[in-house]
């Protein structure tokens, strides 16, 4: 019976980590549903942007208030989690504050954790106020209702509760308070429990300890279902972010091959394919569903934490158009999740469900409102590229469905006929010289 708590702890820990691992596997499988692109190039430059943007939060601080608060929460999150190591060892082996033996350093460490915990608590409160009292516009756009809105608040509640539990755990720990080293914050909470017996205090301390670690495991597993996945995916996402100038859009290779065939006078258009070579099914041009996007674009979708900086800088959105780059990312993720669940339900095979990203999630009205100005790409603190998805879907509309707006069809016909978007003769190209 003596080992019951240890066994219970081991079981909870294993279950928490196990379920998380299972979902991570699913996450990776879903991302791999995307088309392959080779991004094994420029490793050092990629590490550099990951170090700057994800680790160094360089783009977060462009908005100083949110940026600095975010850095506090981010640092607090990483550093306080060192404490989780102690909790796990204590839990598994029935020890109590196993690291306290290291002396003054321990006091220093816990003291730092306590200060950070308080700072995180305060920052999270400010975040909550920004969302719910000040009602910053970007948190109240059309796509931020129901789940996305609640998700944002749940995460803040989680963090408030976890930080409180950590401080209460320390405050109610009689031995720790007696050591009087490292209890920089909790010493002010301890008096609240002044009249309590040692037994009650022990009960509170144990309770806070258990809720804290179980809370962390629940939070870990909440990630997969939440926008909060960015705390993990920001790293690979910034690593695989676009390195080329923002204005450079990819050239479709499948199109290059066709164009070269068309332009090559030596190719016999009536030639039968050589013996034994099966003519490859032409790839679909552009994207109508998530499987047509690249795996990076799908990783982008899972990384998006719905902060809305993109949407708040989007010229189309700012002038009341339907387009919201954040919604493009949220829709992509929602559809990808739907496809993933479909695969789970059908023994690993996707069964057509009569739905797709285009139309059922993202409307053509949104797609045609984009000015390709790259404001969203520039604004994203974790290197997400909503524009590339918009372009890929326009390609599908134009090349597979010939469904461009009429004025654009006219413009493209002009280019085909006379090499300019307007219907002027190519022979008049130099007229400006003599006007």
């Amino acid at each position: 019976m003596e080992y019951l708590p240890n066994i219970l702890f081991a079981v909870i820990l294993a279950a928490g980590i196990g379920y998380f691992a299972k979902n991570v596997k699913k996450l990776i499988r879903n991302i791999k549903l995307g088309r392959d692109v080779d991004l094994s190039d420029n490793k050092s430059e990629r590490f550099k942007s990951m170090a700057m943007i994800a680790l160094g939060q360089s783009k977060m601080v462009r908005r100083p208030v949110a940026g600095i608060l975010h850095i506090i929460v981010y640092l607090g999150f990483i550093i306080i989690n060192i404490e989780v190591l102690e909790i796990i060892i204590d839990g598994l082996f029935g020890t109590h504050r196993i690291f306290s033996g290291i002396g003054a350093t321990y006091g220093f460490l816990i003291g730092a954790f306590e200060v950070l915990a308080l700072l995180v608590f305060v920052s999270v409160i400010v975040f909550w106020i920004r969302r719910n009292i000040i009602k910053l516009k970007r948190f109240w756009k059309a796509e931020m209702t129901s789940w996305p809105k609640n998700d944002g608040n749940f995460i803040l509640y989680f963090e408030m509760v976890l930080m409180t539990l950590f401080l209460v755990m320390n405050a109610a720990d009689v031995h720790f308070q007696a050591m009087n080293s490292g209890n920089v914050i909790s010493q002010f909470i301890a008096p609240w429990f002044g009249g309590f017996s040692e037994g009650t205090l022990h009960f509170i301390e144990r309770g806070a300890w258990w809720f804290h670690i179980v809370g962390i495991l629940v939070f870990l597993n909440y990630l997969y279902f939440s926008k909060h996945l960015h705390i993990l995916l920001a790293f690979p996402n910034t690593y695989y972010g676009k390195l080329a100038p923002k204005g450079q859009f990819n050239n479709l290779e499948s199109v290059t091959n066709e164009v070269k065939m068309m332009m090559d006078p030596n190719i016999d258009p009536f030639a039968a394919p050589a013996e034994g070579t099966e003519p490859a099914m032409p790839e679909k041009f552009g994207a109508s569903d998530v499987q047509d996007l690249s795996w990076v674009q799908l990783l982008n979708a899972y990384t998006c934490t719905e902060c809305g900086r993109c949407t708040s800088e989007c010229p189309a959105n700012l002038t009341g158009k339907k387009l919201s780059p954040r919604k493009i990312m949220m829709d992509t993720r929602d559809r990808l999740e739907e496809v993933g669940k479909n695969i789970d339900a059908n023994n690993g095979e996707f069964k057509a469900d009569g739905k797709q990203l285009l139309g059922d999630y993202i409307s053509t009205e949104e797609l045609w409102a984009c000015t390709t100005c790259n404001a969203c790409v520039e604004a994203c603190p974790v290197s997400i590229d909503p524009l590339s998805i918009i372009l890929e879907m326009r390609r599908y509309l134009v090349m597979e469905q010939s469904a461009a707006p009429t004025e654009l069809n006219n413009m493209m016909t002009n280019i085909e006929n006379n090499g300019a978007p307007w219907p002027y003769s190519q022979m008049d190209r130099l007229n400006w010289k003599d006007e």
Partner: protein
Amino acid sequence: MSEVLKVPSMAECMAEGRQPEILFWVGSAGSYDDRAKKITRAFVKILNKANVDFAVLGTEESCTGDVAKRAGNEFLFQMQAVTNIEILNAYDIKRIVTACPHSYNTLKNEYPQLGGHYQVQHHTQFIDELIQSGRLKLERENTFKGKRITFHDPCYLGRANDVYEAPRALLQTLGVELVEMKRHKKTALCCGAGGAQMFKEPEKGDKDINVLRTEDALETNPDIIATGCPYCNTMMTDGVKVKEKDADISVLDVAELIANAQNL
């Protein structure tokens, strides 16, 4: 117009057996749009003044395909690209200067993969270079000195290619009072023309993008709104008209400012 511009074509250069220093890529807007043609002429005047050995493709030039690509028509883009590259490579072109950020971006970033490798510059970069190297001398005393000018960053020059300083450096050379809009450089707001929007009606909304951007500019209380893109120029000019400020505020390309300042 009275004054005669020297505008040799590549075909003429080839006939004379010489290779010019640069190719001036005029672009479709610069060739056909009445407002943009003035920018083209202003830039040529500067080239002539500095005795730059340049040439144009003239009737052999064709749309870069930028607008088709951004509208989603990758086929048309690549057809245009391959055709243009064939001509550029046949003339053995090494250096291209253009007054259109869309052409600039496409030629510089999207042609190499299709076999077109050139050193490409925006006209503001090239003019800046002419001044730096002493080939073009500007009078410090000029009509624009002390004027309040705000510069609207074209998306395809700024964010797309990180060129922010060259146009500003030129304005500084004129001794103007350069005032920045709240949204400028990396966070500059689009004029609303990019991504093929120039050629279609905007989607339903509560305002036009060019009007919003013009309001940004008007906040700085400028005498002149400067820009470096024919499309931005059209959008901002329209915006100023909507705001009924066209009597007080002019929208000019940086090249026009330089050319006018020198009475070219």
